[in-house]
C-alpha cells in the first residue's frame, strides 16, 4: 500500500487506494461516492417498502426474509422508507452525484472551487447515513413517527415508542443538511465564478442551471427547519415545550417550519430531474432544445412560488380557512410553470429525429409519469378536495407519481446517459430496455390501484385495517394485493440494472469520448475524464443545444469547436 513519504513527495497520480478513492478531493470521485452511497441506501429503502407492503397485502403473515411485522416495526419501516428515499437517495443521487460530476465538466473547469469543502461534504453525508442506519439497531428501533415527524408524536418517546430512534433521526437529518449546505455553496459559487472563457449565462446547460437553482432553494428554505429541528431535539432531550401546548408551545409551529422547507424540497429534487431530462431529450431528438430561456425562467418562477405554497399540507391542521384559500390559489399557480416545462419538452420532441435509446426511454417515461403526478396534484391543491383526500392513499399515489419519476426514473436516465463518461464503457442496451419496461409497467401497476383505494377512503400508515372497524374495507383488499404484487415485480427487475451496471463496468464496449454525439463540454473530455478533466481547458463559442444546424454537415455542434455557422453571417 501507499507509503507515507511525507510532504516532500510531489503530488503523484498513483497516490494509493485510500487517497484516490476514499480521501480524494476530485469532484468525479466524490460524485461516485455520493452515487454509490445513494444506491446502497436505495436498496435499504427498497427493502423497507417490500416488508411493509407485504404486511398491508397479507396482514399478520410472516414476510419472507423478515418475519412477522409488529405494529411498531411497521411504523419504523414506513418512516424510514420516506426518510431514506428523499434525503438519502433523491438528494445525494440527483443533486450531489450529478451536481458534482457534471458542474465542473459542463462548465469546462478542472474541479469544484472548494475541493476540500466538497470532500468534507461527502464525509458528513456518510456520517449522517451511518447514524440513520445505526438507528435501526437501537433499543425501540428506528424512528416510527412518520418522515414528517409531527409533534407531539415525534417530541415524546412515550408517544412514538422509539425514543432513541427519534433523536438519532433528528441528528442524522441535521447532519445531512449540513452536508448539502456545504455542497450547495460549492455548486453555486462554481457555477457563478468558474465558467469556461466565452461561456455566457445562457450558454450554461440546463442541468447546471437546475442544480444551481435547486441548491439556492435548499439554502433558502432549510434554515427554518434546522431551527425547528433544534427545538425538537430540545423537546426530546431537555424536556422543553416548544411544541407542547401545555407550556404555551404550538405543535402546528413544527408543521409550518417543516413544510416551509418541505415544499421547496420537492422542487430541490425535481429541478435536477427535469434538467437531466432536458439534456437527454435534446440529444436524442437531435434538435435544439425548444425554449431554453423559458425553461430557465420557469424554473426560477417555480423556485420563487414554492416558498408560498407550504400550508397546502396543513388544510386539515386547523389553519384559518381564509389562509387555506390563499394557499390553494398559490398551489394551483405553481402548476403553471411546471406545465410549461412539460410543453417545452413536447415541443422539443416535435419533429425531431428521435432515437429510442435507453436514456431516452427513461426521459420520455419521466414526462409521461410526472404528468400524472402533476394532474393529480391539482385535486390535492384545492382545499375542498384535499380535506376529503388528506392522508389517504390517493395522496400517497400522487406524490409517488411525482417522486418516483424524480428520484428513480430521471436517475436511471442520467446514469444510463452519462455512464460512458463516468466509466469509459457503454452499458448494454438490451438489458437496459428489459430493465426499463419491467420497472415502468410495474410502477404503474403499484400506484394506479392505490389511487382507487385512496379515493375509497383508505388511510395511509395503517398497520392492519382489520384493527379499525370503520377503516376495514375487505372489498378493497384485492387492490392492495395488486399493488404489492406490482412492487414485487418492480423489485425483481432491479437486479437486471445492477447486473448490467457491474457487467458494463468490466466488460462493456469501450466508449469514445462522445458516444451520443452531444454538444456539452463534458463530452469534450476523455471518457472517463482524468484528474483535472481536460487536456486543455476548453473555450466556449455557442450555446449547448445546437443540433441539426442548417448548412452543417454533422447534426451536432459542440460548444468548444470554434467557427460560425456556414452561411449564417458573423
Amino acid at each position, binding site marked *: 500500500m501507499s507509503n507515507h513519504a511525507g510532504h516532500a513527495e510531489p503530488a503523484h497520480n498513483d497516490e494509493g487506494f485510500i487517497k484516490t478513492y476514499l480521501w480524494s478531493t476530485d469532484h468525479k470521485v466524490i460524485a461516485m461516492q455520493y452515487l454509490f452511497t445513494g444506491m446502497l441506501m436505495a436498496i435499504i429503502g427498497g427493502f423497507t417498502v417490500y416488508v411493509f407492503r407485504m404486511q398491508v397485502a397479507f396482514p399478520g403473515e410472516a414476510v419472507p426474509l423478515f418475519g412477522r411485522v409488529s405494529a411498531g416495526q411497521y411504523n419504523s419501516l414506513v418512516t424510514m422508507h420516506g426518510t431514506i428515499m428523499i434525503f438519502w437517495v433523491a438528494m445525494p443521487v440527483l443533486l450531489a452525484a450529478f451536481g458534482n460530476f457534471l458542474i465542473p465538466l459542463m462548465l469546462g473547469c478542472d474541479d469544484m472551487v472548494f475541493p476540500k469543502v466538497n470532500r468534507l461534504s461527502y464525509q458528513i453525508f456518510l456520517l449522517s447515513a451511518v447514524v440513520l442506519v445505526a438507528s435501526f439497531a437501537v433499543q425501540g428501533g428506528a424512528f416510527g413517527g412518520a418522515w414528517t415527524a409531527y409533534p407531539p408524536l415525534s417530541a415524546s418517546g412515550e408517544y412514538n415508542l422509539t425514543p432513541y430512534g427519534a433523536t438519532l433521526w433528528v441528528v442524522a437529518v441535521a447532519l445531512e443538511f449540513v452536508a448539502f449546505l456545504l455542497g450547495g455553496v460549492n455548486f453555486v459559487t462554481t457555477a457563478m465564478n468558474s465558467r469556461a472563457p466565452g461561456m455566457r449565462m445562457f450558454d450554461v446547460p440546463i442541468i447546471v442551471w437546475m442544480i444551481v437553482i435547486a441548491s439556492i432553494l435548499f*439554502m433558502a428554505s432549510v*434554515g427554518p427547519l434546522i431551527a425547528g429541528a433544534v427545538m425538537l431535539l430540545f423537546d426530546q432531550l*431537555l424536556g422543553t*415545550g*416548544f411544541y407542547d401546548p401545555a407550556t*404555551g408551545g404550538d405543535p402546528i409551529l413544527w408543521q409550518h417550519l417543516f413544510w416551509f422547507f418541505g415544499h421547496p424540497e420537492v422542487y430541490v429534487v425535481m429541478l435536477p430531474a427535469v434538467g437531466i431530462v432536458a439534456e437527454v431529450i435534446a440529444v436524442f431528438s437531435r434538435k435544439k432544445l425548444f425554449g431554453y430561456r423559458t425553461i430557465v425562467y420557469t424554473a426560477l418562477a417555480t423556485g420563487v412560488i414554492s416558498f408560498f405554497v407550504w400550508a397546502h399540507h396543513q388544510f386539515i391542521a386547523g389553519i384559518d380557512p381564509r389562509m387555506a384559500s390563499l394557499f390553494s390559489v398559490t398551489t394551483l399557480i405553481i402548476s403553471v410553470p411546471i406545465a410549461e416545462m412539460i410543453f417545452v419538452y413536447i415541443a422539443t420532441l416535435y419533429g425531431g429525429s428521435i432515437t429510442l435509446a435507453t436514456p431516452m426511454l427513461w426521459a420520455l417515461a419521466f414526462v409521461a409519469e410526472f404528468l400524472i403526478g402533476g394532474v393529480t396534484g391539482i385535486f390535492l391543491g384545492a382545499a375542498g378536495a384535499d380535506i376529503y383526500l388528506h392522508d389517504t392513499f390517493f395522496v400517497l399515489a400522487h406524490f409517488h407519481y411525482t417522486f418516483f419519476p424524480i428520484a428513480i426514473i430521471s436517475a436511471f436516465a442520467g446514469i444510463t446517459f452519462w455512464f460512458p463518461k463516468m466509466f469509459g464503457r457503454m452499458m448494454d442496451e438490451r438489458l437496459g430496455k428489459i430493465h426499463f419496461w419491467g420497472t415502468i409497467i410495474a410502477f404503474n401497476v403499484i400506484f394506479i390501484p392505490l389511487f382507487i383505494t385512496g379515493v375509497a377512503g383508505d388511510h395511509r400508515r395503517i398497520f392492519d385495517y382489520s384493527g379499525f372497524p370503520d377503516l376495514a374495507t375487505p372489498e378493497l383488499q384485492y387492490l392492495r394485493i395488486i399493488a404489492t404484487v406490482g412492487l414485487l415485480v418492480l423489485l425483481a427487475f432491479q437486479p437486471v440494472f445492477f447486473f448490467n451496471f457491474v457487467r458494463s463496468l468490466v466488460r462493456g464496449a469501450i466508449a469514445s469520448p462522445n458516444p451520443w454525439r452531444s454538444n456539452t463540454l463534458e463530452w469534450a473530455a476523455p471518457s472517463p475524464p482524468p484528474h483535472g478533466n481536460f487536456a486543455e481547458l476548453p473555450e466556449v463559442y455557442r450555446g449547448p443545444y445546437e443540433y441539426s444546424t442548417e448548412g452543417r454537415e454533422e447534426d451536432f455542434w459542440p460548444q468548444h469547436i470554434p467557427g460560425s455557422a456556414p452561411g449564417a453571417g458573423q
Partner: protein
Amino acid sequence: MTSRPIATTRSVMGVPTGRLAVWWVLASEIVLFGGLLGSYVMLRLRHDAWADQSANTSTWAGGFNTLVLLTSSLLAVLAHQAAERGDGQKAARLLRYTILGGGVFLMVKALEWTHEIQAGFTITSNLFWSFYYMVAGLHAAHVVAGMVMMFIVSLTAARNEELHRVENVGIYWHFVDVVWIFLFPLLYIAK
C-alpha cells in the same frame, strides 16, 4: 497541499470566489435565525405573560455586550483595512483583538446565565426561557466558530499569506454581530 484547481482562481462574476461563498453561507444562516426569531415572535405575540419573564433579563449586561460586539466589528474592519494595505502583521494583531472582544462577550454571557440559572430561570422553566437559552446559545456557538476561524486566519495573515481571508472572516463576524443586534431588543428590551 496548496495546489489549487484552476476553477478556484477563475472569477467570471468579478467577485472573488471566497467572498461569494461567504455571502451564500450567510444567506443560509439568515433563514436559520429568521426561522428561529420568526417562531419566537409569533409565539410571543400570543403570550403577553412572557413580558414578566423577560423583565428578569439584564438589559445592562445585554447592552454592554452589544457595545463589545460592535467594537470588535470595528476592529475586524480595521484588520481588513490593514490587510488591504498588505500589512499582514497588523491585520493579524487586529484580528486577535477582535477575538478578545468575542471572549469578553462570552464571559459576560456566562456570568449572566449563571446568575439567571441560580435565580431559578432554567431552559425548562418557561417557554420564554427556552427560547432565550436556545437562541442565545446558538448565537454563542456562532461567536465561538467565528473566533476559531479568525484565529486560523490570523496565523496565515501574520505570514502575509491569504490576506483576502481577513475580509471574508470579517464579513462573517459582522453577520454574527447583526444577529445579536436583533436578539438584544427581542430578548432583553421588549418587556
